[in-house]
């Protein structure tokens, strides 16, 4: 693939001339191209790819990189540094701590809620689930089933009901029972659906009113296979409900989930959790260095 930025080729040439005598055969043009391709292929997107490659070039120009192996190590470092630096832990230092789960359709919100609840149980915490997706067929039954597996209460209304109402009742129940964490499921919605985004804002207001300071976490669920649209999604959801972080699901597939990097970098949002399967335990904390390492496989350094 030809370089993404016109200036790139130029500075690369300068770089090569600079190192020509020492590194000519090791510091090859091919490698730079493979780096760009790897980033694009990971769904990092053009803007963040350019930003990473530029940062890398700066290091190379400053003499911090001597050969291909070092270039790759630096690439991982630079990439990891592109993630938002905010705390990636879930804030549960409230009683009840309220977690609101949002996202477009089918990304894994309901499943992730089941997993979070299970992990909380393992920590000795008592979660309560609130079935705020009153729209999709059998969405309530799905959450109820997760509640059964985890062994925690699920507050539900009928399908077609007002999500604000069930959220209100759910929070009341959480307080009454002295639950540690209330996790609210919501219907999947595309960020382009104005009315549904308004509805989400309303749900948020209901939460704020019922429990001042809540929600303590508003997590956006993004499917790891998502392409560049993920960035727009995150921007719109952030605007609607003041996101505190992002969950990347389905990382057990072959998608690299690079959109997480674009979202984190460009919108200044921490990635908080990684979904790695459909089982209760398939949830991991996010680690920028590990994630960056995973974006580039070992073959990148070889010719």
């Amino acid at each position, binding site marked *: 693939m030809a370089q*993404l930025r016109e200036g790139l080729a130029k500075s690369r040439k300068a770089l090569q001339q600079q190192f020509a005598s020492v590194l000519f055969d090791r510091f090859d043009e091919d490698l730079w191209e493979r780096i760009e391709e790897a980033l*694009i292929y*990971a*769904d990092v*997107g053009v803007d963040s790819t350019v930003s990473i490659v530029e940062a890398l070039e700066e290091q190379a120009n400053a003499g911090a990189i001597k050969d291909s192996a070092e270039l790759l190590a630096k690439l991982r470092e630079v990439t990891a540094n592109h993630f938002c630096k905010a705390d990636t832990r879930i804030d549960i230092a409230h009683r009840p701590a309220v977690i609101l789960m949002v996202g477009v359709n089918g990304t894994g919100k309901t499943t992730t809620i089941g997993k979070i609840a299970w992990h909380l149980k393992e920590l000795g915490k008592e979660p309560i689930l609130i079935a705020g997706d009153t*729209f999709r067929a059998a969405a309530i039954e799905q959450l109820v089933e997760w509640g059964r597996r985890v062994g925690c209460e699920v507050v539900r209304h009928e399908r077609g009901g007002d999500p604000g109402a069930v959220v209100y009742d759910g929070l009341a129940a959480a307080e009454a029972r002295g639950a540690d964490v209330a996790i609210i499921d919501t219907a999947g919605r595309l960020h*382009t659906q104005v009315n549904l985004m308004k509805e989400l804002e309303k749900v948020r207001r209901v939460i704020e009113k019922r429990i001042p300071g809540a929600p303590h976490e508003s997590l956006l669920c993004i499917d790891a296979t998502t392409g*560049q649209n993920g960035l727009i999604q995150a921007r719109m959801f952030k605007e609607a409900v003041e996101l505190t972080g992002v969950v990347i699901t389905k990382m057990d597939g*072959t998608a690299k989930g690079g959109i997480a990097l674009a979202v984190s970098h460009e919108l200044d949002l921490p990635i908080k959790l990684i979904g790695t399967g459909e089982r209760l335990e398939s949830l991991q904390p996010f680690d920028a260095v590990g994630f960056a390492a995973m974006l580039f496989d070992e073959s990148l350094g070889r010719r």
Partner: protein
Amino acid sequence: MVFDSLSDKLQVAFDGLRRQGKLTDKDVERAAREIRLALLEADVNFKVVKEFVEKVKTRALGSEVLESLTPAQQFIKIVNEELTSLMGSASTKLTFSPRPPTVIMMVGLQGSGKTTACGKLANFLLAQGKSPALVAGDVYRPAAIEQLKTLGGQLGVPVYDEGDQADPVDIAKHGVSWAQDKGRDVLIIDTAGRLHIDEKLMEELVRIRQTVKPHNILLVLDAMTGQDAVNVALQFQERVRFDGVILTKMDGDARGGAALSVRAVTGKPVKFASAGEKLDSFEYFHPDRVASRILGMGDVLSLIEKAERTIDEKKAREMEQRLRKATFTFDDFLDQIQQVRKMGSISSLLGMIPGIPSAKLKGLQVDDKAFDKIQAMISSMTPEERRHPDIINGSRRRRIAAGSGTDIHALNQLLTQFKQVQKMMRQLGSGRVPKNPFQMFGNPS
């Protein structure tokens, strides 16, 4: 009409190049770069992008710029043609078995929209007079069976299930005989979402395929999918050999480049597009629409098409001759208006004129009713009056106004406008361009 960023960028890329002549090396290189970026932003797989851009470049180099288009538009035209030919030209029709039931199986990743698509396709087939039925083959996802049953209930379409403890292969097999007994002519099998690298679950699909031999296997693909779509499609292709794709969540603003990737690497057509959570938002796929969506400039493309379809080159040249000689008559005027109307809105026509910045066209609205009136008034004139408007005196005016169902006031306005246009045309003939070429289409009432 709104020019999108890509076409604006292409305009810039071609800046300095006059309207006519060949596309040169440098022009094409710059434009190709923009196309490459646009395709990447649209999530087309980078390998597919690479090949595609090469092809476009080869075709664009040295190609003659059509008279009615700017170089940017010419380039977009080539890109669009390549894109559409890549996306399209394969049947979107389903295969129906002479021996019912016709079996259709949905496959795909988790959350792509399979279960919803089962309901939508059933609804679609109902509308075609078929009697579909559904099979609940997802025994893994909590409440997946419940979900399908709810959709079936909404449509009044029967759903076969054996609970979540049975083997999906058995369920599918039994479902077929059940449908036969019930006299249903199409059977749609829902399956669990699975990763293409999940060996066990992929094997399950292979077994279902071997057991019930579906007539159609459809891969359900989320329009928001990124670069990985290629891996997914290739794996599903290799293991289950799907026949076509259902592209879902098209109601959002994802460009849907994944559809192009899948088409390019598997050769399998997109057959249906799903654009909403309601059961009726489902239709046959239109390759041209996605082609323009991927590029993010549907308006430009439809314009180019319209320009090609509507403007009769010879006629246009004749017209120009007359304009320059200032023998511009009401017949010409009417002719022009009709041309414009054939093409859609007046702003589209103006948008085709190279050199008019797109920003100027935004919000430009021309009332169709105004055209109707003009047309009626001109039709009420005699041939003699149309050729020599100067002879239209008071009594002629009253006759024309009455005959066209308008009034003297409107007619007077039209006559004034006509004179202005005539004058403008004369200026055009003499090389002086009027300040506002749009005024001829002002509202006469």
